[in-house]
């Protein structure tokens, strides 16, 4: 220590090892979430076992689980999942590749924003799925039209959020950067981009959800493959258990992917103060 400053707050922080937050507190999110799901399934299974539910209209957890096993081992579940998954991922990554750079550009260049805003707003406000019949005409009823609808569904939330991030940059930070003679390029890299990362990742999270909707609805509409098709076909045959297998698989995929996106968002926000609202 060469510093001669002897001020009170200048002392190095105490070295006392701090107690780690308890296991329960660290895994709070997982614990509360799991509890809710387990409770729901328990109630559902109970009503199923009591035969309060007709298999014609709905099914029970054990029946769905059994059906899942059957379909996964001997049926076409894996092939359907692979088909849907492939469409989803291709569409989603295209959405990411276009949505982020476009959002940054629109956020950064005011005139470009003014130029594109009406189109973007219109596309964002309308249900993109309404365009799907058009895509079938253009790209056929196979993978092509499905990738396009996933792309469009996922791209807009990513674009809108990225744009909002860049446009909302704290003016004080821009002022500080300018005062230190930062060039536009430096401001872009050191302020605009890091500032919008959390916004981009929020967009990614919404994009995942919207992209999944696009995937399934596209298959409900037309075609003969994929989880959406499986759901639609089972519905026509009154196979409620098969139908629910499709629904559960979709929900599970959605949860895993959104959780991954949320994790990524937190990783980039470790500088943020923790949640301050009510417990």
């Amino acid at each position, binding site marked *: 220590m060469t510093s001669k400053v002897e001020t009170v707050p200048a002392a190095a922080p105490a070295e006392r090892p701090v107690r780690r937050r308890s296991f329960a507190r660290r895994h709070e999110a997982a614990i509360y979430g799991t509890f809710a799901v387990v409770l729901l399934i328990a109630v559902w299974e109970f009503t199923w076992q009591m035969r309060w539910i007709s298999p014609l209209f709905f099914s029970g957890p054990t029946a769905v689980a059994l059906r899942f096993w059957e379909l996964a081992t001997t049926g076409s579940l894996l092939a359907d999942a692979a088909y849907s998954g492939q469409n989803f991922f291709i569409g989603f990554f295209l959405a990411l590749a276009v949505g982020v750079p476009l959002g940054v550009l629109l956020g950064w260049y005011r005139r470009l924003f003014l130029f594109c805003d009406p189109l973007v707003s219109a596309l964002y406000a309308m249900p993109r799925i309404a365009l799907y019949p058009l895509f079938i005409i253009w790209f056929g009823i196979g993978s092509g039209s499905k990738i396009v609808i996933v792309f469009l569904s996922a791209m807009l939330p990513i674009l809108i959020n990225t744009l909002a991030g860049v446009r909302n940059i704290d003016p004080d930070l821009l002022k*500080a950067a300018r005062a230190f003679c930062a060039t536009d390029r430096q401001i872009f890299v050191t302020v605009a981009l*890091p500032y919008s990362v959390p916004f981009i990742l929020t967009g990614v999270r919404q994009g995942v959800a919207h992209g999944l909707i696009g995937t399934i609805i596209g298959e409900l509409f037309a075609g003969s493959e994929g989880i959406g098709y499986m759901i639609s076909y089972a519905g026509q045959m009154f196979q409620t258990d098969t139908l629910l297998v499709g629904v559960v698989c979709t929900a599970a995929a959605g949860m895993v992917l959104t959780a991954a996106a949320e994790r990524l968002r937190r990783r980039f926000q470790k500088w943020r103060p923790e949640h301050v609202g009510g417990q």
Partner: protein
Amino acid sequence: MNNAGAAAAGGATPAAKLVIDHLSYRYYLEREEREFLAFSDVSLTIGEGEFVCVVGPSGCGKTTLLNVVAGLLPYDEGRLTINGRTVNRPGTDRSMVFQNASLLPWRSALANVRYGMEMQRRFAGELMDRRAQELINLVGLSGFETRYPSELSGGMQQRVNLARALATDPDVLLMDEPFAALDAQTREFMQAELLKIWTQTRKTVLFITHQIDEAAFLADRIVVMGMRPGRIKQEFRVPFARPRALSLKRNPQFLALCDDIWRLIEEEAERINVIRGER
């Protein structure tokens, strides 16, 4: 107030570092489609190593003046020279300490101190690291290098803000009410600390405040601004010897000086009928 500036020139004035020469600044009010004269015909010469404070009622154009000197607001009436060269945009010869700390929230304290140097690209990477650490030590933040701004108190954030400004080794340090947002105790403390640091670095300082005792404690010279439009009313030379201790604030001579300045400002406030009970 018609007697000439109280003590404009007394004793040997050091070489002029910063010359503000008949400077005016107008904001353009877009909605009202008219100009607003923020300050008018301000002339002020600050010598090498001099500490000058500007005080005045809130809204008299202090921040605007400082922003113009920083080069953030381009002026078109009057002249501004530093080391004899006319300036009208940000330069490496000036550094600004902002009223809001304006730190990048995703950078650690140390990385924030580096920021100004990084933008100016005048220092080698290794030198930036060394200087950043030295400055952290100088402002008494050893041990807090890795903290994010959200993990620092207001006073500590302002220390980082100050360290960032000093790190680029400017000729002139511009400070805009850097302690205004701090609690009274921390503020006093930071004033003493600032003087200590200033004694070690001997920068030319232009310091804005609306706190008269702060100005009288810190400055070699105090410039009082009036308003509508903002302009210089009177100058006071501060006669107290350095180093100054906080106990100086209880010295009767000190209190008398504060009183003189206070009366001047009060008069001004009365003149335009906007006493806001602020000191």
